[in-house]
């Protein structure tokens, strides 16, 4: 995209179509541009690929010719599928007329890409599993948006015994996007190389293909010289590679056999800013996972696939494929991958877990805001939440929910400063928030921010390095940044992180468990195997407390370095019915997978308070640390469960209204009195304080009864109120708060601190939440002692771009507008992207008792009303934009 231009989405008259505009930035401020540069990686893919856009191009005539090299076109009927099986060459065939034909220039581009890249394909990916003709047909008008975003489809048999690449026309309002087309065409060519020997699940198949696509497209000279390498890299960063942020995104919601749910494959992308489900992140994470393999073993793909092609039916389970991966490592002269066996490594990548797990799921995806920060900006992140439900048949429902994230300081104090009361409204499975973490608590030193994002009974924890990546005073982004967990604070200890590549060692200081290092060595820019060491110096003695091997792709890398991480726990199972706890976040996502037993033989069940019924495995949701289950066994056993959980820090568990089965996720026993509860934006309460408004007075342990006369083991039991909870013990807790609660377990080493680290200054805030039947948006405004009426980077946040749907801003551009404390004030609410005739409701919620009375104006209806406390106002849009005003009294 040209400098100074912003690619923005705007709804057209139809509710289900989008178009692309090249406009000036949405805001006059630099902040929007900064956030845009981060968010557009995702949105730009969607923007250029909507059905409306492609339809408009088709109707407008042929796209701008980019490549005019002569190509050979095979006419329909001339190609026949050979009987040849084994390595061979493929030949492309294009329709020369009709609806499946491409514009000649576009066809020429694709053929040119193939001609140029073929040698590199063979080198990286090996020869095709079978030779012959592969048809390349224009499915722009028919292909689902998600498949187009993912880079096209390959069918080994299109129903007419033809091999076929179904490919869209990648273009925007100006013309075709040759780099987008080229990269995605390489992707589909590699799918065609596999022929009918595709790997069994998307995580393995698409992942290896996309990693190879990245490697090939980044090889100088591999693609036609007419293509711009910077644009090619932009395409890879936008829809193929999330390698730099892999640690942050390696979450269990990624698991599953396919990336695009069957019911979403041809469903249009929703309006309202939703990305339409988790599919693109899955594609990117799969490519980045396999990129780790190719970094350490560049010839892995060709070796692995050659053996797979030779006997593919022998490799149809994860264990079989892992064994093949291990033997490939041996063939290439190695034995480990990132320091682990292939099976161990694969088990740690949720994207490679193909287990279908019905139930609700949450993925939380952070982006650092890297460039051009100003004022008091100190660690600005965009945090995106994806919340959806997988049905037993693999379909996915895009859910609506609200999350109240909790931001913890390095000593696990809940932050009190501004932006700590953010709410994530999730609509159509997607919501985001852009908190800023001002540096005041630590004198502008970097520090670790732990973010808990609870939604229903799901919770994901992020560990983010505030001020370690880029700040206003040090704006150049670091190449290596991250956080350390598992180390207790101590006054006389110094932590450092060593990054070794080859014989070069770079040392990065750690401050408040966060680090960021500027590595100017150009050798570091590319793909590298790294050895990371965390060193602690105390009393003049330095010890290495963590060593980790990480394979880095091109560009910077974020790391979460878990010292003394819990890597597993023993699940002790007795004959009969019992309650068991999932004592740490397991690598398995389903109970039968964790127990390594046939799904039909596993009896596990969890109470769903929303449905007021027990759900039974495998439909009882993803296994998650801190959850508890009823389990019934005929024999006793102790099953080791592989897990991954930071140590020496409080652990949070999300609860829903009603009865919840949870467990103590700490390795030590705790007292009920040490439990803390957090609701919405409030500070943690002790259990005693929470009793009544938040939780019931008692928690209950299940005590199995006497052996049954028929089966010989307990079939029933009783519940007993308890005050102490053993390590890993499961128990029932009753939540009365309608919005649920977050239960925080803190042991002697990692107990959360309930006191704010900074005395709260006088402040008030009000939230304005705009909703329609299909989408929503919100803003926050108010006053704070210490803020000014200008733009305060520490307190004011401008609205993030990339939201194509309903728009709501304070003033011209603010998501959060915090002004100086005291006095009356007027806030203009700017509503945009309204749909004519649609009904909208705006809810105004004062977050304080210090300012409760205000006057609300809707000039379009000449509506003026004096309000007190929370109020709603509903209107029908008669224009695309609308302005309203909130005039507030002087705070008390």
């Amino acid at each position, binding site marked *: 995209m040209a400098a100074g231009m912003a690619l923005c989405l705007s709804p057209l008259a139809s509710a289900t179509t989008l178009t692309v505009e090249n406009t000036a930035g949405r805001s006059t401020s630099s902040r929007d541009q900064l956030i845009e540069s981060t968010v557009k990686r995702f949105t730009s893919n969607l923007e250029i690929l909507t059905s409306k856009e492609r339809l408009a191009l088709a109707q407008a005539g042929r796209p701008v010719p980019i490549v005019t090299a002569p190509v050979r076109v095979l006419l329909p009927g001339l190609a026949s599928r050979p009987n040849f099986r084994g390595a061979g060459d493929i030949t492309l065939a294009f329709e020369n007329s009709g609806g499946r034909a491409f514009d000649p220039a576009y066809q020429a581009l694709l053929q040119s890409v193939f001609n140029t890249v073929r040698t590199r394909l063979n080198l990286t990916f090996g020869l095709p599993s079978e030779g012959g003709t592969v048809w390349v047909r224009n499915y722009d008008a028919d292909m689902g948006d998600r498949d187009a975003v993912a880079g096209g489809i390959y069918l080994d048999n299109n129903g007419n015994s033809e091999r076929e690449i179904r490919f869209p026309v990648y273009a925007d309002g100006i013309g075709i996007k040759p780099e987008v087309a080229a990269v995605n065409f390489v992707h589909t060519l590699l799918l065609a190389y596999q022929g009918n020997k595709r790997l069994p699940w998307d995580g393995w198949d698409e992942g290896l293909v996309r990693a190879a696509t990245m490697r090939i497209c980044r090889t100088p000279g591999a693609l036609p010289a007419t293509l711009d390498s910077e644009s090619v890299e932009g395409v890879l960063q936008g829809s193929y590679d999330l390698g730099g942020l892999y640690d942050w995104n390696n979450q269990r919601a990624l698991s599953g056999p396919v990336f695009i749910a069957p019911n979403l494959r041809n469903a249009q992308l929703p309006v309202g800013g939703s990305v339409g489900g988790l599919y693109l992140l899955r594609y990117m994470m799969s490519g980045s996972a396999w990129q780790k393999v190719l970094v350490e073993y560049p010839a892995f793909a060709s070796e692995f696939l050659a053996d797979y092609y030779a006997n593919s039916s022998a490799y149809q389970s994860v264990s079989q494929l892992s064994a093949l991966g291990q033997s490939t490592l041996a063939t290439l002269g190695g034995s480990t991958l990132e320091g682990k066996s292939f099976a161990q490594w694969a088990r740690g990548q949720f994207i490679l877990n193909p287990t279908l797990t019905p139930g609700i799921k949450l993925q939380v995806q952070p982006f650092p805001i890297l460039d051009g920060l100003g004022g008091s900006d100190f660690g600005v992140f965009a945090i995106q939440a994806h919340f959806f439900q997988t049905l037993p048949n693999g379909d996915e429902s895009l859910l609506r929910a609200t999350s109240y994230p909790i931001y913890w300081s390095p000593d696990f104090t809940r932050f009190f400063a501004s932006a700590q009361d953010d709410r994530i409204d999730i609509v159509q499975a997607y919501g985001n928030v852009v908190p800023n973490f001002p540096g005041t608590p630590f004198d502008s030193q970097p520090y670790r921010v732990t973010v808990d994002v609870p939604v229903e009974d799901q919770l994901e924890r992020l560990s983010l390095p505030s001020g370690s990546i880029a700040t206003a005073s040090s704006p150049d982004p670091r190449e290596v940044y991250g956080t350390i967990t598992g180390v207790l604070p101590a006054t006389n200890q110094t932590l450092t992180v060593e990054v070794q590549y080859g014989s070069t060692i770079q040392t990065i200081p750690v401050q408040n468990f966060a680090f960021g290092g500027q590595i100017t060595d150009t050798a570091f820019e590319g793909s590298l195997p790294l050895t990371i060491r965390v060193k602690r110096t105390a009393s003049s003695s330095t010890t290495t407390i963590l060593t980790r091997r990480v394979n880095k792709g091109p560009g910077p890398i974020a790391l979460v370095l878990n010292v003394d991480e819990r890597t597993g726990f023993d699940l002790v199972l007795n004959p009969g019915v019992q309650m068991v706890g999932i004592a740490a976040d397991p690598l398995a996502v389903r109970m039968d997978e964790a127990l390594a037993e046939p799904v039909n033989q596993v*009896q596990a069940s969890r109470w769903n308070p929303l*449905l007021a019924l027990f759900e039974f495995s495998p439909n009882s949701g993803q296994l998650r640390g801190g959850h508890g289950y009823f389990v019934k066994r005929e024999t006793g056993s102790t099953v080791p469960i592989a897990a991954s959980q930071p140590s020496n820090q409080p652990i949070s568990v999300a609860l829903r209204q*009603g009865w919840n089965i949870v467990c103590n996720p700490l390795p030590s026993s705790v007292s009920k009195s040490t439990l803390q509860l957090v609701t919405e934006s409030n500070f943690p309460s002790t259990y005693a304080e929470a009793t009544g408004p938040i939780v019931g007075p008692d928690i209950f342990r299940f005590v199995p009864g006497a052996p049954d*006369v028929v089966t010989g083991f307990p079939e029933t039991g009783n519940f007993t109120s308890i005050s102490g909870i053993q390590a890993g013990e499961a128990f029932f807790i009753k939540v009365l708060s309608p919005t649920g609660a977050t239960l925080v377990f803190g042991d002697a080493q990692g107990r959360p601190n309930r006191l704010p680290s900074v005395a709260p200054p006088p402040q008030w805030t009000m939230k304005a939440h705009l909703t*329609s039947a*299909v989408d929503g948006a919100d803003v926050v405004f108010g006053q704070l002692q210490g803020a000014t009426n200008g733009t305060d980077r520490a307190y004011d946040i401008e609205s993030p771009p990339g939201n194509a749907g309903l728009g709501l801003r304070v003033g011209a551009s603010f998501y959060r507008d915090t002004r100086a404390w005291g006095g009356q004030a007027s806030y203009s609410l700017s509503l945009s992207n309204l749909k004519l005739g649609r009904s909208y409701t705006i809810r105004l919620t004062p977050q304080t008792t210090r300012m409760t009375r205000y006057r609300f104006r809707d000039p379009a209806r000449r509506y003026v009303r004096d309000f007190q406390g929370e109020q709603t106002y509903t209107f029908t849009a008669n224009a695309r934009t609308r302005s309203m005003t909130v005039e507030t009294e002087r705070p008390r």
Partner: protein
Amino acid sequence: MRRVALLIALLGAMMLALVGCGGGGGTTGPTSFELSGLVENISNGGAPTPGATVQVGSSTVTTASDGSFAIQAPTGTNFVLVIYTPPGGGPLTFRFDFAGITDDTNVGKLVVGPQQANVTGAVRDQQDNSLLAGATVTLGGIRATTGANGIYILSGVAYDPATPATFLALEGRAGRAGYFPRIFFPDVTPSGGTATLSDVLLQPDSGGAPPGTPFNIEGFVNPSPDGVGAVVELRLGGTLVRQVTTGANRKYGFWVVPGNYTVTATKGTLTSGPVPVNLTSPAETIRRDVTLL
């Protein structure tokens, strides 16, 4: 910030008046409000085509292309009528009730379809199985309250016999003071214009113990009071695998792996005879009431 300084200068007098009048005396309250919502066609989950007519009193409005509507309604309005004409059929009137409005109100999703069914069922206390009066039940936007007998009747719920799965996917909600609200889904489709759903069980929100232990084959032994103290056997291929005795609530339950079972209840000389129960999946739950004869 200049914008604020200017606005405060302009608005200062007004704001003083606002504070002085106690926040409520500055304007006169309206006698009507905007009522909005979204009408959905059960057949396809989309907007009704052509648009449906939404009626409040003598006022009407046609739904927009996305099914949304907004209409002015007098204070206290507690229902709307939605007139929908399905393709090839005559107009059907759906009545959607809600609490009387006192402000602008969005009534949410209102489902219409080519047919209507009367849906009935009971709401019970999950712990003691007692019938609950005064519970509110909604399904597809249709609302009803259980009577003294714990029975609700939802009149005119949308249904399309061509797409029965869409009826089973309708999200129902039930709630009552003293109980946790819950979601439920229909477990049968209408037949002959009526559907009787399984009981909706509500969990008390005060006192009491946790919900109990899981069962995937469960039911009641009828009739009352004979079902109290009945011995219920579960057999697999003739082999006894479980045996329980019902309590005062006549309820039995087993948690077993998939298989072809029979359930037999016995009390004195009364017996239900073997009732087949085929559990095909560990995630499946089957409710099978048996009757002593």
